[in-house]
């Protein structure tokens, strides 16, 4: 008989190992799925995980990993601080959208002026836009005790309506023949978040993501506020005795994660995406939740997890095109990753015992 036995302490080894085991399990289960679809599983797994990094065209895909991973990491870092404190911001997608709208809007107000001040202004506006959108659930929670999960999630759909509205109205390209969507910021030097080194994929959003990783690490491990965040999540009563003000913590965590999501949106709209359009958001805010947990809410873990998620997206598209795999199979594959991670998490807190329990 197999039974689970609670560990006295969470196992540090399993805590580190579960993401790796989860990736391996995903590869095996995914390989079976691909085999069932009549594709060579080894080739499929190689296409997804190996080709973007070391294949023939890796010179193009490696920079794309940065482009795809940066917004995920930037958003996930912000979310992880809140998740650690037990503050659940599920609405990063909305904050991402509002950051992009505010950032692009602040820039486009000065079109076609060329000035070095425009881009910094857009960065500021983008961060503030995301911050303000996250402050709605934060203030409602601290003033009226509403549930931040519901409020932040619902505000995603409100933000999507805003996005559609500005794409069709306020920010619509006057030279766009009546089609929705803003001017393309890529063709306006002052507002373009261009690659810092051509061909490297390294734009300001990537830089911001790396700074955020270091900042989050220092905050959580070397700073009183970081200690309070961890304490509130792990032992809320103890935190109150230690003098932590829960309201201030909610405002800080939601505000910071909103600002980072807003920055991610702003860097995306001014760089890789280029324009505000109705379908501007592609789910980074939701995927970042997976990234945060895949990275164990740890700053450097998130960096790796963001890279891994980006890899499955890019490799997944290659597998679709080269091997004719349906996109649904790729999505199932990505879903497996989270599923196995959560399932294997059990091993951190429990150990498997085989045999009859000893009679006391």
């Amino acid at each position, binding site marked *: 008989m197999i039974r689970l036995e609670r560990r006295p302490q969470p196992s540090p080894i399993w805590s580190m190992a579960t993401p790796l085991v989860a990736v391996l399990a995903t590869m095996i289960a995914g390989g079976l799925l691909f085999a069932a679809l009549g594709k060579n599983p080894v080739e499929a797994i190689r296409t997804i995980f190996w080709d973007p990094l070391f294949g023939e065209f890796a010179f193009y895909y490696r920079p794309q990993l940065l482009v795809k991973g940066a917004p995920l990491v930037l958003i996930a870092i912000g979310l992880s601080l809140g998740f650690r404190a037990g503050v659940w911001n599920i609405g990063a997608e909305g904050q991402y959208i509002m950051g992009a709208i505010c950032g692009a809007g602040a820039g486009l107000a000065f079109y076609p002026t060329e000035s070095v001040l425009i881009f910094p202004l857009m960065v500021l506006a983008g961060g503030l836009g995301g911050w303000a959108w996250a402050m709605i659930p934060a203030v409602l929670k601290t003033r009226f005790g509403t549930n931040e999960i519901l409020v932040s999630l619902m505000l995603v759909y409100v933000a999507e309506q805003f996005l559609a*509205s500005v794409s069709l109205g306020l920010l619509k390209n006057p030279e766009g023949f009546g089609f929705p969507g803003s001017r393309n910021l890529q063709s306006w030097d002052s507002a373009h978040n261009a690659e810092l080194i051509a061909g490297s994929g390294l734009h300001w959003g990537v830089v911001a993501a790396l700074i955020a990783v270091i900042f989050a690490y220092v905050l959580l491990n070397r700073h009183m506020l970081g200690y309070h965040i961890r304490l509130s999540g792990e032992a809320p009563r103890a935190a109150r005795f230690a003098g932590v003000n829960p309201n201030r913590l909610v405002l800080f965590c939601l505000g910071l994660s909103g600002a980072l999501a807003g920055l991610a949106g702003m860097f995306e709209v001014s760089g890789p995406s280029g324009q505000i359009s109705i379908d501007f958001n592609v789910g980074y805010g939701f995927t970042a939740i997976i990234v945060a947990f895949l990275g164990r809410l740890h700053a450097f873990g998130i960096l790796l997890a963001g890279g891994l998620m980006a890899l499955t997206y890019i490799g997944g598209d290659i597998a679709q095109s080269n091997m004719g795999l349906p996109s649904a199979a790729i999505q199932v594959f990505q879903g497996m990753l989270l599923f196995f991670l959560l399932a294997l998490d059990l091993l951190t807190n429990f150990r498997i015992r085989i045999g009859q329990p000893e009679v006391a």
Partner: protein
Amino acid sequence: MKLNTLLTSAAVALGLATGALAAEDKTKVGFVYVGPVGDGGWTYEHDQGRKAVVAEFGDKVETVYVENVAEGPDAERVMTQMALEGADLIFTTSFGYMDPTINVAKKFPNVKFEHATGYKRADNVSTYSARFYEGRAVQGHIAGQMTESNIIGYIGSYPIPEVIRGINSAYLHAKEVNPDVEFKIVWAFTWFDPAKEADAAKVLIEQGADVILQHTDSTAPQAAAQAAGDVITFGQASDMAEYGPKPRVSSIIDDWAPYYIARTQAVMDGTWSTSDTWNGIGAGMVKIGEISDAVPAEIKASALALKASLADGSYHAFTGPIKKQDGSDWLAAGETADDGTLAGMNFYVEGLDGDIPQ
């Protein structure tokens, strides 16, 4: 080294490589889809076009596709990937792929690109679209006579010129046969979301609509109409014949196959050049699906006559006198709309209620 140079040299190297392997000499054609190939509508029909290319050229052609590609940087990456892997011709089948297509085309001057429904062209980028509004005229003609509540529900996707053109065309031709007809328009802000589309259809039916027209791609509104009972619908982009003979009484079918075959042939022959194609019923890019027996014979006959007059060019779907919604004159009696105005149409015609969302 600059990415552009790198990519170009890679493309050139590939071009040389394929040239060296002249024995194989396959033309590689890529397709980028915004939805799943099983949507039963827009993307499904583009994929039918791809299959027609395979059927036509057999071993001489290799096709690849990626579905569910988000508009923006993801689309750009997928196109770049196809070009790197040696595609000679790439069809990008959604309006939002416009700027990405132009960006990638700049990096791969030897690869030909075809962008559906856009307006930006380059030396290696053509655009193509279909005059769906001609099909809408036939729909409006049938719908206006079939409705008993005089309320026609219309599920719009996004308020872009193509969709507004369709609403205007359907309304004008419904009004022509039924002066009391009224249009209720719901904007779904999606091309493909079965749940949202079904909700939109239900709302319209509850508001008294007994005809549902849709400019979204799934079959969910058809199912909702079927469940509601005495409501008729029209297939969109694809025939959706499985919902016939009722609720689906007819359909607009996008037939991309002849165009895709012709353009692939042009690449093979080395005769491909930039063009802007906007074909309708006459050229066979827009087809009217079988009008079912649920439609009385005389309505069917007059609908087919209208279709024939659109096909041979003797009648234009936008023929004056037509006023704009605000009452100002648009087309004088006998005057027909020019393509430029149609392409950027951002106003309702007189008689439609409500505002175009902004």
